């Protein structure tokens, strides 16, 4: 199942943004007030929420929400209005296909050979038969897509997620995923193609980042509208949803034990039934 992909500004831009947000965080870091120790339930809640920077996070949530309301959401609406669904799906598929080399690296770093095999087959099939990734033929041929990014990779290595963060541009995240976001861009081969004066590649990269942002936003138009309408505290709701979604993605990856076994290799009956999807 596809997940929400965030916008990916260029690496230089992102590192500058991350540095800026780090400075802002240090400057603004107001800490959430810890509940009194004589209220164990409240303390347990506070620990479970694990959002010590909540006041600062809420400021960034408000800023991001403002930017979204005036820029990204209207763009996504215009995109949905102007571009037919089938074309949007094609664009989405092309963007996913461009991201497969990075995905493959993460599959391997996660130690998931079967997933890596799926990704490699997806790239080969969809780039050729699927015409530069427009059509997801591989899915029909038994190579379904899955999520992989460096945040998930680090999770599989045992890196803890840390407290909740809400960052400008990135939105809901945590230290592990924020670092993973940067490293993910660094391990994406398309980040490094073309020199600084290569107009063609520069246009390609920025078109890709821009389209990615609009495509991801368009895919969650209805859901986000609904959440904002029904939540009493949208910030807390997004915090909860982000974490649950990440945990589910990581669990799914961890429990994916499909092994790549050659067809001629004799295997126990129990395994052969378990591995058939």
């Amino acid at each position, binding site marked *: 199942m596809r997940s929400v992909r965030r916008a990916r500004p260029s690496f230089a831009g992102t590192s500058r943004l991350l540095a800026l947000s780090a400075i802002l965080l240090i400057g603004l870091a107001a800490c959430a007030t810890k509940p009194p120790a004589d209220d164990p339930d409240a303390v347990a809640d506070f620990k479970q929420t694990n959002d010590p920077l909540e006041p600062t996070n809420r400021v960034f949530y408000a800023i991001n929400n403002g930017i979204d309301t005036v820029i990204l959401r209207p763009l996504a609406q215009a995109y949905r209005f102007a571009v037919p669904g089938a074309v949007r799906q094609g664009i989405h598929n092309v963007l996913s296909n461009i991201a497969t080399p990075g995905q493959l690296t993460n599959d391997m770093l996660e130690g998931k050979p079967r997933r890596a095999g799926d990704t490699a087959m997806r790239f080969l099939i969809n780039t050729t038969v699927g015409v530069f990734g427009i059509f997801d033929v591989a899915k029909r041929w038994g190579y379904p897509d899955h999520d992989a990014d460096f945040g998930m990779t680090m999770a599989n290595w045992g890196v803890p997620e840390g407290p909740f963060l809400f960052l400008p541009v990135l939105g809901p995240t945590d230290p592990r995923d924020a670092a993973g976001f940067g490293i993910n861009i660094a391990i994406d081969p398309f980040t490094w193609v073309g020199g600084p004066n290569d107009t063609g590649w520069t246009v390609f990269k920025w078109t890709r980042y821009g389209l990615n942002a609009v495509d991801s936003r368009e895919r969650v138009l209805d*859901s986000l509208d609904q959440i904002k309408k*029904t*939540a*009493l*505290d949208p910030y807390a*709701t997004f*915090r*909860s949803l982000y974490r649950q*979604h990440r945990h*589910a993605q990581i669990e799914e990856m961890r429990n994916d034990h499909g092994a790549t076994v050659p067809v001629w290799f004799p295997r126990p009956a129990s395994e052969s039934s378990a591995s058939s999807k």
Partner: protein
Amino acid sequence: MIYRRPFLTFAAASALLTAVHPSRAQSADRASAFLKSLGDQLVAVVNGPGSIGSKRAAMTRIIDSDVDVDGIGRFCLGRYWRLATPEQQKQYLKIFREVLVTNITSKLGDYQGVTFTMGRSRPQDEEAVVSTTVIRPNNPPTAVDWIIANPSSDPKVIDVVAEGTSLRLTQRQDYASYLAHNNNSIEALITAMRNQVSQNS
């Protein structure tokens, strides 16, 4: 002769046990059948003819009969349930039902053309989890798991998990945060829920 009676008792008891505790796989099958029927009803109402008013009424009937609204409501209040007075608990459950019904019925229009496909079902503790894929126009397909309580005796939906996010857990954390920022006042929560219903209905 002497052994016959205990043997019969044992046979009867084991027969009874089998009847009362059907295997876990069987209960997952029943949960699956229950959900298929529930899903078909929901899709029929959403895509069917009739005014918004009649659709809302039909939806409310389905929710009341197949969803454990009070159980979900208690879960969503979390630790504050024990802090609430019996009167507040009553008021809260009443308004919670309205919130749930309004949230579902207010987006009936957006769900026009919805379909779903059934996936696997599996037992989980005392409950059963039925996986589905919900497909609605203009939106990517969504993996939705339905948590069914008492799958073999009195099946009721107690949670909906969309793309790994639990509806009741999210709601609980929303309420908890609201309460934490409003002096833990259950009155304030009930008022906010009332406002929400009047705005969205």
